[in-house]
């Protein structure tokens, strides 16, 4: 019974929490620009508003344009399922492998880029070109940072990694820190955060993620925004629970599960605060300096592996 209940939480946790953390990051950034900023629940209200609006779809668009938001949202949900969020005993070796997680997200980005081109506008095209370039280069750093963990844990299953990393002695923590730095750069790239892409802007020259979804409106825009929030939460959860997995409940008792959820929320809060601090303290890089950043993330993870093997 408890496991069924825990499964329900596992499924609904990602979609429910993700707009919250988007709100929190916006709130902190506003605070840094010493303005009050909207409340942290503003994203929920935006979604409800968008669901209630009519939709304008371009006549050039095909079925890809129409069904892409649902595919994107679906992939984020499946990935959400297989993450070690607050318990590790929900170990599924169906989709638990970290390669599956990365390639499922790539599946979503693939369709997002296609939909960007489908509308036939110049902005969409350029957005998808930049998006695909960055995600292609970020994949190396992403895979290799998680690979360090897989080598240490002798398994590529996420839950198994979380269990074995949590029982790791402190002195062999150096490679984990290095790979976390690599992972953090890849996280910023994949979720379109600051040095790579400014989430708030609509300036044609700089926007990457926004350019692709320019043509959307109404319920489809809502689903895409939600999916973007989910993706951000997934990366935060990965960052939190793979690299610092203490406090995850590994037994079935109610208290352990609740303690797990609270510790998980605290870790997510710390991470989103650090992202917000980073964003307000740094300017967006020129596009052609990004590959060097991504290659550094790849090299850092390779050094981390070098230390272990």
């Amino acid at each position, binding site marked *: 019974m408890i496991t069924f209940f825990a499964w329900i939480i596992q499924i609904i946790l990602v979609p429910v929490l993700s707009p919250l953390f988007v709100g929190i990051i916006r709130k902190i950034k506003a605070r840094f620009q010493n303005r009050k900023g909207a409340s942290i629940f503003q994203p929920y209200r935006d979604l409800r508003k968008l669901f209630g609006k009519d939709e*304008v779809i371009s006549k050039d668009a095909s079925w890809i344009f129409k069904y892409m938001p649902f595919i994107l949202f679906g992939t984020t949900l499946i990935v959400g399922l297989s993450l070690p969020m607050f318990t590790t005993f929900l170990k599924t070796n169906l989709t638990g492998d970290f390669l599956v997680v990365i390639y499922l997200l790539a599946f979503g980005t693939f369709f997002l880029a296609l939909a*960007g081109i489908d509308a036939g506008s110049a902005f969409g095209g350029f957005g998808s070109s930049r998006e695909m370039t960055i995600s292609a280069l970020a994949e190396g750093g992403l895979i*290799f940072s998680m690979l360090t963990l897989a080598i240490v844990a002798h398994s590529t299953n996420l839950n198994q990694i979380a269990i074995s990393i949590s029982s790791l002695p402190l002195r062999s923590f150096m490679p984990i820190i290095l790979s976390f730095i690599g992972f953090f750069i890849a996280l910023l790239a994949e979720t379109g955060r600051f040095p790579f892409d400014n989430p708030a802007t609509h300036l044609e020259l700089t926007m990457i993620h926004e350019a692709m979804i320019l043509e959307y409106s109404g319920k489809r825009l809502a689903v895409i925004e939600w999916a973007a929030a989910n993706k951000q939460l997934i990366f935060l959860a990965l960052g939190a629970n793979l690299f610092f997995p203490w406090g995850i409940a590994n037994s079935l008792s109610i208290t352990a599960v609740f303690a797990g959820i609270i510790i998980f929320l605290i870790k997510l809060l710390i991470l989103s605060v650090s992202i917000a601090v980073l964003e307000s303290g740094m300017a967006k890089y020129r596009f052609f300096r990004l590959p060097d950043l991504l290659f550094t993330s790849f090299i850092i993870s390779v050094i981390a592996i070098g230390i272990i093997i």
Partner: protein
Amino acid sequence: MLTSQTNFIIALIFLAIGSIGSLAFRKKDSISNIWGNTFAAAGSAFGLLAAARTLFLNDIFSFSLPSTFPILSFSFKMDYLSAFFVFVISLIALLTSVYGMGYVKHYYRKYDIGSLGFFYNAFIAGMLLVVTANNALFFLIVWEIMTLASYFLVIFERNEPKNIEAGSLYFIMTHIGTAFIILAFLLLYKSTGSFDFEVIKNSAGLISPLTKDIVFVLAFIGFGTKAGIIPFHIWLPSAHPAAPSHVSALMSGVMIKTGIYMFIRIFLDILPNTPLWWGIIMLLVGSISSLLGVLYALSAHDIKKLLAYHSIENIGIILLGLGSTLAFTALGLNSLAIVALIAALFHTLNHAVFKALLFMGAGSVISKTHTRNIEEYGGLIKLMPYTAFFFLIGSMAISALPPFNGFASEWLTFQSLFAGIQSSNMIAEWSFVIAAGSLAFTGGLAAACFVKVFGVTFLARSRSEEASHASESSISLKVSMAILSILTLVFGVLAGTVATSLSKVSESLNTLKGSGVAATIQNLSMTTQNVFASVSMPGILLGLLIIITVTVLIVNFISRKQKEITGITWDCGTKPSPRAEITATGFSRSIVTIFRGILQPTKQTDIEYHDANSRYFPKTRTVNLETTDIYKKYFYSPIHKLIIKVSQYVKKVQSGNVNAYVLYIFIVLIILLISGVIK
């Protein structure tokens, strides 16, 4: 039920009838087309039957016919490895023949369909024989017949000089490759005294390590030229686009795999205890080929040339699998070697399937728009919905996206590389790290390249008149593409069962025989001694389907009251013209500039003025963006110039002066007399 040997012979007979028949009906195009393709399909169907019987009912056969020439014996052998490759070849040949029936219609009255049928059947028969030949000399004969048939298929559209050049470059390169192969077999003959693969395998102990290394290098260059690995690939991007699409599907999908077949046959079956550096070299060449293959694909804008470059990339991935197998056998980890070989074989099968699908899609697009340049396509998804859907499935499979077969084999290759990273030897570990790095980047870049191809070809508005009048392709084209896309899904989802049957194939090899399989492979959960990794492809597919349908239903239910209005795309108020859309060059420009060190893009702008001397009012401005082919510049043309210089020098011997000629005789006489006496 017929034994696999009779099936195989019936297949060859059908192909023979097909080739001779289509030549006989040369005069009437339609009859020779139907005749050629039906017999090719029938032949490959029987080939499929034979392979299936051998693979699943363990009906291995080998027989040989005596020949009038002393050292030649026509000996065939179908063990598990040959059966697997016969299976792949006949599967793709069956579907390309069905595709060919519809596709060849647009060549009627333009070219000679009879010779197309003749060489097409000979080409398939050649490939089937190459993978079952058991005598080195017979193998070489059939190998050259396959090259000969594919040469005439490449120059089938002989009105364009470009195709003729592509054809001769192809024939020259493969012939040079065959010279290396001949040398390798001669060296084997020198130490074992026979040309029969069985005899060589049994007396492999006699081969000294030095000859074994030389044979490795020669065979690697020889078969690498046919497989199209990086330094020897220059014929592939020009030869495959020149051939008719159903032939280039066959060439790109299966013909380059015969090189891979011989890699496995020689390095894993015939030559015992391989040294470690073989595996390392194969890993490095594999990673270079995969990375550069995808980069050149990004800079290519002819759709078939792009797909050809992707074949190089996928061959690189297969080589990664093979390289890790060799490295594991050298390090003694035979169980991991089996896993790596399963990854390589699985990717061979998958690549054959989705590459044939992509070439067929490209073929039907070209037959409708009569051009191969992506820049002139656009908006075809509305005019050719089915082809677009099948092409989409093909592109998702090739960029290794989860539910499809590309992901399954790439996942297995990744797992074998990760296992390799944890192996004990220092050099091996770092080569595995390089290989895993290149595979990671290749996956991402391949996805970028196929977003470019699919987006520019099928989505948004059509960029040229031809593209706007395209119509859906005919039935036989759609049927074969449909079957192939179902296969990509089936092989993807049933990856577990395919992997188990492949483990039977890889265990049958000589060097890997009888090693306890520590790595259990059931429905694709791989547990080796210390690494536990598992993925269940059906789980992913089910999850995707359920969750996506649920979200669609919920979202439609929530905003059921809202209306969907169709307007025009927002283009800052200007009328949305096709010029506003992203072009393929624009799309890949950022990646090409990032990797400018390797690709060395050149930009040439020339401006035409109204009147030449005033140079103020330009009439037209053309920008020409190209990437230089560094291989031709730094490796092939210097050798070519050297040969020309030597032959010019040698030509002076025939100076035209009689006295000089008699002087040659006089000098030779004196030299021989002097050397005769001293000796």
